[in-house]
């Protein structure tokens, strides 16, 4: 018990047997079911789990901001000797802000759009400190400087919409820190941000924590983020803690099968694509039902009869404990390869670029700008260069991944390829037919050849249409088959995407996100398309569901001979799916090549920075990896920088980059090209192969 006593006296926050319920109209969700942990002075505790695991509810229970219907029904939350679970509202208000600061996920919605950010930072200072207005202003300025907002003085008068996402999150952090909290709860602080901004914000949080000697509770679904920034990690599943350990220990010596499976189901950014990704079967349990035994048992391949009857308790030493009757052995839990061994299957070799088939898709100097207008008469005051001068080709059966941060034009490009947007200039030739020159009628009949998969499975299906009619619709529109053959096709496709044929009777809201995305694939496949443009196909899904979908996407490609254009901000997802990668920045294609070339020997500084910013779920490598900073914020696409568009954030930028716009040129081998004057891998081949972008692309036989 000496260990426990030690924790008692040094811990800042101690949660003891916390139970939180959310009452709904017809059911009570046991969101948190007996969670105990502590956060010591100066420690960063990471809370990981998928959606519905109770990680966010834990955070909200601590600060007493549960959603309507939610309440703490048991346990204690000891913070500086006070039990927050039983604190009256008035005393709780004093704790919030001054004792505990919170940073939420979405900086777009957690700031008041009608108040200047100065006023919003001053508000908590005056509420808790009652200092006079001038002093509060001074403090606000100090805070903005502290969180690294440039030109803080001018920024005080800005409204939230005038700031970028990254700056807004910095402002949120400033507000959370305004009254020197002892504990900072950061709930998915970087999930809504781009990967380069994410790494800056995480670094900032780590630095501030040390400087202000705070403790931090970092809540996230991203094991990579946890690996780099948490001292101790708590893994949650279905409202309970399944494993708790020091960060390095957890990743090196995983004990709980769930944690192990979770780690194994993440595609890695520095790993090849020739294996089937491990995926956890099934879906998380329904928390409104009575539970018996281990909640993970139905999805666990190590489950025995005992797991379904008895409730496993957290066992182990203070450094590492897991709630499992059949934990992974030392050998199984160390490193990630053993888990993989379960599922390794040879994959088809990617179609090599030596394959001299005619290209299926040729995108040639495509430009798309959106006018920016003002006033009633829609006077044009400028234009956003969504896509400017992008060219590439795709051959039948290959997968091209398109990566880039938000606003780089990748989605617009995808929509143009499936003819949902028309380019302003350039051509998109699909199988020999120029889509940009077709009439509306001809385009309509062409559409069955290429389909789009959407990011959000919740909005891509008509909520008022059952799955059966929704899948029949494409065939009805294109007058394919009759009633019987359509039904047969639907049954077949549902089988292909891993759903039973019963699905036709249900409405979309009766499916989970992953299932809906499967339905989206089934719908896209009804017309036997040749090209599928998948716009962030898995980014709305949880890790365990995501790996199921990634495997499905690959399986469908083989079964249906598909060509994929996968658009994603997630470099590891693209790496897993794609044969070739294109990197976009502010409407430009800056680098393109095979996976091995782009990920192994990135030539463009932006690609290198992007790769370095991706968090790796392995503390040793994550903390050791060299930082290639991509500093600052994305410039506006309305006034892109002259010359090279990346120069404002590039560590290698020189005079020439301001003046001369770099064109795509070969860097290592003909099919690896980058648009940079000073590529990271400069070769003689690159210089001699310098010619204009279109020829570099069009000449496959060169």
């Amino acid at each position: 018990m000496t260990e426990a006593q030690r924790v008692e006296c040094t811990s800042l926050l101690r949660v003891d047997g916390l139970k939180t319920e959310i009452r709904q109209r017809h059911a009570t969700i046991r969101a948190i079911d007996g969670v105990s942990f502590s956060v010591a002075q100066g420690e960063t505790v990471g809370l990981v789990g998928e959606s519905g695991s109770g990680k966010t509810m834990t955070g909200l229970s601590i600060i007493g901001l549960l959603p309507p219907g939610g309440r703490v029904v048991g346990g204690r939350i000891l913070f500086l000797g006070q039990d927050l679970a039983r604190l009256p509202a008035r005393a709780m208000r004093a704790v919030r802000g001054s004792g505990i600061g919170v940073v939420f996920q979405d900086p777009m919605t957690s700031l008041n759009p009608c108040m200047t950010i100065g006023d919003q930072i001053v508000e908590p200072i005056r509420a808790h400190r009652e200092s006079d207005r001038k002093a509060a202003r001074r403090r606000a300025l100090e805070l903005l400087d502290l969180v690294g907002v440039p030109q803080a003085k001018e920024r005080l008068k800005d409204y939230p919409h005038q700031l970028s996402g990254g700056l807004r999150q910095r402002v949120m952090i400033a507000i959370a820190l305004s009254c020197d909290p002892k504990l900072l709860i950061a709930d998915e602080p970087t999930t809504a941000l781009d990967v380069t901004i994410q790494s800056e914000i995480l670094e900032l949080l780590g630095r501030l924590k040390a400087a202000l000697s705070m403790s931090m509770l970092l809540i996230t679904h991203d094991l990579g983020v946890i690996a780099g920034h948490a001292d101790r990690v708590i893994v949650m599943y279905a409202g309970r803690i399944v494993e708790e350990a020091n960060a390095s220990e957890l990743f090196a010596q995983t004990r709980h099968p769930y944690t192990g499976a979770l780690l194994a189901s993440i595609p890695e950014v520095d790993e090849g694509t020739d294996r089937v990704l491990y995926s956890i079967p099934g879906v998380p349990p329904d928390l409104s039902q009575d539970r018996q035994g281990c909640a993970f048992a139905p999805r666990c391949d190590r489950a025995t009869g005992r797991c379904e009857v008895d409730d496993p308790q957290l066992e182990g030493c203070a450094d590492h404990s897991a709630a499992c009757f059949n934990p992974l052995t030392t050998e199984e839990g160390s490193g990630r390869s053993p888990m993989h061994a379960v599922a390794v299957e040879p994959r088809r070799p990617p179609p090599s670029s030596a394959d001299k088939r005619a290209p299926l898709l040729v995108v040639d100097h495509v430009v798309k700008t959106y006018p920016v207008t003002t006033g009633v008469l829609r006077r044009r005051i400028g234009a956003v260069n969504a896509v400017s001068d992008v060219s590439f080709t795709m051959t039948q059966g290959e997968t091209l991944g398109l990566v880039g941060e938000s606003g780089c034009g990748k989605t617009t490009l995808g929509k143009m390829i499936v003819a949902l947007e028309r380019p302003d200039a350039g051509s998109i030739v699909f199988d020999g037919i120029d889509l940009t020159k077709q009439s509306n009628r001809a385009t309509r009949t062409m559409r069955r050849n290429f389909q789009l998969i959407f990011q959000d499975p919740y909005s891509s299906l008509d909520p008022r249409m059952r799955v059966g009619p929704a899948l029949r619709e494409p065939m009805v529109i294109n007058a394919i088959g009759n009633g019987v053959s359509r039904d047969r096709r639907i049954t077949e496709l549902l089988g292909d995407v891993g759903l039973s044929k019963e699905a036709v009777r249900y409405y979309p809201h009766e499916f989970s996100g992953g299932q809906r995305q499967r339905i989206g694939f089934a719908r896209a496949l009804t017309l036997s398309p040749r090209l599928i443009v998948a716009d962030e196909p898995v980014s709305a899904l949880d890790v365990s569901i995501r790996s199921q979908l990634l495997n499905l996407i690959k399986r469908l490609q083989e079964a249906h001979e598909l060509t994929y254009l996968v658009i994603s901000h997630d470099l590891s997802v693209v790496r897993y799916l794609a044969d070739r990668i294109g990197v976009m920045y502010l409407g430009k294609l800056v680098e393109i090549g095979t996976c091995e070339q782009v990920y192994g020997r990135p030539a463009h500084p932006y690609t290198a920075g992007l790769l370095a910013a991706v968090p790796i779920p392995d503390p040793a490598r994550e903390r050791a990896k060299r930082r290639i900073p991509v500093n600052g914020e994305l410039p506006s696409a309305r006034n892109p920088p002259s010359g090279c568009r990346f120069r404002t954030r590039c560590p290698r930028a020189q005079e020439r980059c301001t003046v001369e716009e770099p064109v795509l040129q070969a860097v290592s081998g003909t099919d690896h090209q980058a648009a940079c004057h000073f590529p990271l891998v400069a070769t003689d081949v690159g210089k001699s192969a310098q010619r204009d972008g279109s020829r570099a692309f069009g000449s496959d036989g060169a």
Partner: protein
Amino acid sequence: MATTRDPLATRALVERTAAPEGGEAVASRGIWRVILDVFLQNRLAVVGVGIVVFFLLFCFVGPLIYRTTQVVTNLTLIHLAPSSQHLLGTDADGYDELGRLMVGGQTSLEVGLAAAVVATLWGTLWGAVAGFVGGAVDAVMMRIVDSVLAIPPIFLLLFLATAFTPSVSMLIFVVAFVSWVIPARLVRGESLSLRSRDFILAVRGMGSRDRRLVLRHILPNAVGPMIVYATFAVADAILLVAALSFLGLGIPPPAANWGEMLSNGLNYIADGWWWLVYPAGLCIVLVVVAFNFIGDALRDAVEVRLQRR
């Protein structure tokens, strides 16, 4: 599910449900079932439905039981106080007041319901097309809506009622004409937001024509708010008809309606002949309030339609 399960049964259950890789859908209760549940939890709404059902029976079944003559005037029976023969007395023309309330209610309810349905259907289609097509078409269509809105309804009604001979179908047309603009605006907004949703883009990407998008996807998704609006529209229409008739521009006698009866009764308010004033007034108030209760409850119920509860 039973609280105690033996392990073997659980295993079997797990294996069965794990059959398709993606898992099965969790059947939730139907959207309409959820809406009905929420609706029925609202006591006022249930009262409202009760009142409406009562008045429907009263007006359409009532005359079959309580037989009176409402066509031939009988001057020997004018202004009789309520008695066992005439439960609510008689009016200035010798008509039985209770019988007349039933007949008059028929007109009010018919006009109210029909006008609300016509206005909602037309307005919905108008708004859906305007919002979906957008651009110049939208601008022109919505300026037409603005123009109709700019005319005070009572002036328009007075003009139309004097220009044409009032009849039931005329009244329906007139009332619908002044009230279709509100649903048109509502649905346009709905349509604008639906238009940019992914599922519309997906169906377009399959090669669908606009007509299909509007009829099969935009309209069904706008149906919730429209039902709510239609309910309020019935109440408004009944009030409008009553107001018109009160001003003497309703359907001419011997046809009856509550507004006209109220108007006639007011002549005798100083004489203490309450049975000519209160019953008609009460009928109007009760029906209008009942429809408003229903509309309020429907609005609450429809809000939860996409939530998984």
